[in-house]
């Protein structure tokens, strides 16, 4: 009988330890997401953004985006985002460097590059419902206190992300992550009063041969002003050759990039 109890106890201990050993943490999920998106360092995407206001009126904007993602050092993360049309925002270009810590805006009409800092990042970018903050970085464990909220869903992880930045506009983000491919399917942005403010949904992805994930279509809703933005990429080139100084204020002043 003692032997049976001992065996039973060992099984319980083994199962408990095994569960502990195989359980994934929220930080590990964020790390894996980052790794999956950073397998290809450089990327050029050309696409469209369709913005709809509260009256249902649509505006279409063509855009090009270059990005650099370094899984070894997120400080090197950078991107350039330029509108190609319509005329009123043509060639308005944003440069994000040092993982969103240094942001510049080039407005062709003013013929100079303007630094955007701090809460300037909360400003809406060129009339879209994306703020500079929304556009400026990924979702690194360094920027959020992450908690895994579920372990019983076969398809998704649900993460609670509380921003480390005390000046953030959000009290937390609720992120739904695909368990198999490790990309976020949906992010709910919760305001400082605890109400849902914005929702970002990824509607179409492409899984590359190396396992990395490319987002092709995403839908962004601002529930406070009842506006939406649908971003769809028509072409995505990965691993392109870019000069070492490409992500610079020099580049964003060029008529064509």
């Amino acid at each position, binding site marked *: 009988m003692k032997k049976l109890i001992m065996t039973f106890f060992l099984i319980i201990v083994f199962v408990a330890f095994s569960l502990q050993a195989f359980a994934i943490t929220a930080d590990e999920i964020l790390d894996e997401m980052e790794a999956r998106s950073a397998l290809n360092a450089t990327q050029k995407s050309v696409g469209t953004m369709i913005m709809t206001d509260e009256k249902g009126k649509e505006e279409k904007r063509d855009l090009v985006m270059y990005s650099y993602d370094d899984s070894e050092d997120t400080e090197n993360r950078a991107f350039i985002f330029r509108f190609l049309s319509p*005329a*009123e925002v*043509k060639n308005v270009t944003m440069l994000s460097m040092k993982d969103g810590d240094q942001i510049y805006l080039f407005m062709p009409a003013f*013929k100079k590059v303007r630094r*955007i*800092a*701090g809460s300037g990042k909360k*400003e809406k970018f060129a009339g879209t419902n994306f703020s500079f903050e929304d556009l400026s970085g990924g979702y690194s464990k360094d920027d959020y206190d992450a908690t895994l909220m579920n372990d019983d869903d076969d398809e998704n992880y649900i993460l609670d992300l509380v921003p480390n930045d005390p000046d953030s506009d959000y009290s937390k983000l609720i992120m739904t992550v695909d368990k198999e491919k490790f990309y976020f399917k949906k992010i709910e942005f919760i305001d400082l009063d605890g109400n849902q403010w914005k929702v970002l949904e990824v509607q179409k992805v492409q899984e590359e041969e190396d396992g990395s994930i490319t987002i092709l279509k995403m839908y962004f809703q601002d529930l406070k002003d009842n506006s939406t933005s649908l971003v769809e990429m028509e072409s995505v080139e990965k691993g392109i050759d870019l000069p070492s100084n490409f992500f610079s204020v*020099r580049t964003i002043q060029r008529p064509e990039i």
Partner: protein
Amino acid sequence: MKGILFSISIMIIILVFTPFSFAADIYGEVSAYGNYAFDTEGFGYGTKLQLKYNPSLSDDYYLMADVSLKYQSENNYSPIRLNELYIQGFSTPSEDIDYKVGYMHLTWGASDAFSPIDNINPRPFSQSISQDALDEKIPVLALNVEWYMNPTWSLEFVYQPEFQSNYRPDQIDNLFLGYQLASMLDLNPQVMQIDTIQHLPEVGFLNPVWGVRARGNVGSVDTAFSFLKGYYLNAYPYRTDITVNPDGSSLVQTEMGYPERSVLGAEFQGEIPGIAGVTFRADFALFIPEKWTNQITTHNADGTTNFTTVDVFDEMYWKASVGADYTASDNSYYNLIYLLGNPYEEGKDINSYLFFRLEKPSPDSKWKPFLNSILNLNDGSMINVIGTDYNPKENWTITLSYSISSGAPPSLLAMAGDTLSLSVKHVF
């Protein structure tokens, strides 16, 4: 009547050009404005068609052509304006060099408005403090080369073999001169007839206006240091002959020139440590003028003659623009700038100002109410502009504003008067 005909011609040209422009990759804007000055009960209006063409000539070369056809009911310096016409080369003749050659606008300084370092392009006269008016410049013929020495620092060089002055209508020049002389010599500016002769500086290929500017980062602050050698863009008197008549009126004959000057500049922009969310932008300029005096000869009504020498520039002086801007979470934008001198003031005439701009866009960004205020800290004169931008549809902006000025002449702010303005702009 002429103005109305001119406006109609511009509208016809716009109708002809707009479809063509889409086909030829020409872009630009068309605008019309009207304003009513309450003090003078005067109505001003104007129209503008601006066309830009920026084709690629090869992988490394671009052409920029920017012209305007503009009518305004007063103070129009030219109905047809060449804004820019230059060839731009990137990464040529070597990988780390970009350059432009032709007629161009060059903007130096980190400040959003009234940078004391932004001295290369002259400006047309305007009493408006709207963004469009502040951004309006007259092009200069120049070679502009920027050498990107390393990932952090670049060195810019400007060579300008032709002098171009600010445009200030004769009556405005005479008004300023009249008030200056009246304050010094006890004359009545209302009964003063002024004749001026202006002598341009001898700028050429061997005696150019030139400048250098190093741009880079010091820590997390974007910085630039510059040196510009050239001439003032406004003319100053150096010989004045005044005849005072027995009835108190006077005849003034003045010869004017453009004093030489050097400008040392420093620019900074970045975040203020410890104050999250605020971007500071600061420009400091040290002006080193050549010594410039005005020899005044006064022939009095009683037959006597007086000789006076007035120092216009006799020592170096500072101008500055130090400000900070902040965007709140509701997207309202605040910008406060301390100004030591405005673009029209130099030397002993410099005043201190506070400039404040507030914008509060609606949630859908269609409406953007704003307040622009500028206060002269020396004499208390002030202009407040309240208004709103409205975007009824894509590429269209309507701006309605009411400007209130206070103070007494010769303050430029006081002389602006109270004005109601409406403008419509379409970009294509």
